């Protein structure tokens, strides 16, 4: 029986952690993710879970301890945001290259500067090439569902890679919405016991994790790691299918919302997809053939599948909630365009930068974007290929 409740995104993730009852959680507080370790600490203090909580002195230590605990054989996790993730930078790469199936609850917040505590994706996108699997949520329900799927993906022997479960800071993490939770028993059965094959605290079976590698080996190790990330695509879909059977909620690499006959599609990540869907409903009522493609899995990047989903539309608005400072587009814009080009898909696109540092993104912005795409395709209007929306200019 599903449990109907109302929760914020942070509460939802903390509740998922409670149901999983992981072994070790080292964490350091940072807005807006602070509530997650705080709530987990409450569960521990109340005797509801047996997780060992380590109050560390920094996020650098939080990720180091998470890796250490995971290597020792414990199911481990941490939570952070923004500068906290930036301080973990070195260890993020180690977690992935040492093939540690640990989990990080990321509550997306902008990186400084100017210093600001609100949502954008500059933290998660900054870590996009660290080798982690990255799964983004639109709302509290998805944050909960994605978190429960994290360990079955990470711990699969075909993968053995860390997973980052991302939700939008404040917009999702602090807004209280309805949610459907699962009972503890099916969650425990779905996530399962953690039984690592190789781990440090294993008497008589010595193992060295993360040894120095000379040039004759390091390149081969990277290739294996890249292959594991690619192999995760199949596992992510298998886990989603298994999860659908117990929850009734369907997940894939992305959600296609009214795209089947759409001339214009907005490709977007995270909470703003809700805004885009509302605008699409409004425009559909006016007879406009528009749709939303909400990307859930950013790493591994499902380029082929995205191209397949976009190839029949006339134009796509690729939405980036971060500035890449490369003068050539945001991360999603650049990667989708590379995918379209490589597969010779003739789809016009405009890459919009929106919602930086908590800037509101409204249905009016979405109307304007679809109108601009239509003007570009139908009337040959010249549109800048990489531009800001919602900027005073």
């Amino acid at each position, binding site marked *: 029986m599903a449990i109907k409740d109302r929760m914020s995104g942070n509460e939802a993730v903390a509740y998922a952690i409670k149901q999983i009852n992981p072994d070790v959680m080292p964490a350091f507080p940072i807005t807006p993710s602070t509530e997650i370790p705080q709530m987990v600490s409450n569960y521990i203090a109340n005797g509801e879970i047996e997780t060992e909580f380590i109050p560390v002195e920094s996020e650098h230590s939080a990720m180091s301890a998470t890796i250490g605990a995971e290597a020792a054989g414990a199911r481990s996790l941490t939570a952070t945001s923004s500068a906290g993730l930036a301080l973990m930078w070195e260890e993020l790469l180690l977690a992935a290259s040492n*093939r540690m199936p640990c989990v990080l609850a990321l509550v997306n917040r902008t990186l400084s500067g100017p210093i600001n505590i609100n949502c954008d994706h500059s933290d998660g996108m900054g870590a996009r090439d660290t080798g982690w699997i990255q799964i983004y949520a639109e709302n509290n329900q998805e944050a909960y569902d994605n978190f429960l799927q994290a360990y079955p993906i990470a711990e699969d022997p075909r993968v053995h890679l860390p997973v980052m479960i991302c939700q939008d800071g404040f917009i999702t993490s602090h807004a209280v919405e309805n949610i459907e939770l699962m009972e503890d028993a099916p969650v425990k059965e779905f996530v399962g016991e953690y039984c690592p094959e190789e781990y440090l605290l294993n008497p008589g*079976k*010595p193992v060295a994790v993360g040894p120095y590698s*000379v040039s004759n*080996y390091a390149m081969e*190790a990277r290739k*294996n790691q890249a292959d594991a990330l690619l192999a995760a695509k199949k596992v992510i879909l298998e886990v989603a299918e298994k999860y659908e059977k117990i929850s009734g909620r369907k997940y894939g690499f992305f959600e296609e919302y009214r795209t089947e006959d759409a001339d214009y599609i907005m490709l977007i990540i995270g909470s703003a997809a809700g805004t885009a869907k509302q605008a699409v409903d409004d425009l559909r009522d006016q007879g406009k053939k528009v749709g939303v493609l909400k990307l859930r899995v950013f790493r591994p990047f499902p380029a082929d599948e995205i191209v397949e989903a976009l190839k029949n539309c006339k134009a796509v608005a690729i939405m980036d909630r971060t500035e890449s400072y490369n003068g050539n587009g945001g991360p999603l814009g650049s990667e989708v365009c590379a995918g379209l080009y490589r597969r010779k898909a003739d789809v016009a696109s405009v890459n919009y930068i929106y919602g930086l540092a908590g800037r509101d993104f409204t249905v009016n912005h979405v109307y304007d974007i679809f109108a601009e795409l239509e003007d570009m395709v139908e009337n040959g209007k010249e549109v800048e290929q990489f531009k800001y929306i919602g900027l005073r200019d």
Partner: protein
Amino acid sequence: MRTDVSKINEKTRHQDLTEGLMMFAGGTSKEFNTGEWRTNTPVVEWDKCRQCLLCAPVCPDSSIPVKDSKRLDFDYDHCKGCGICAAVCPFNAITMKEGK
């Protein structure tokens, strides 16, 4: 996953390496001939050596093997040619030669 790492070498395909290059054995550093780094080489003049054994304990790379209270020749697979043994020898029995 547990593999006989002694069968892995610089010709092994990437598919056959261990996950994350995990090592499933101890003391494997001696397999690496770090003596390749050497640019100066210590040489013993055995007629001058009194087997005082002052050199063996100061070697940072344990490259002076001792057996039955007598030092043997250098382990050139691991000696880096730092010259500490030559500096510490009271009988000038060790000289540093240029090159490997």
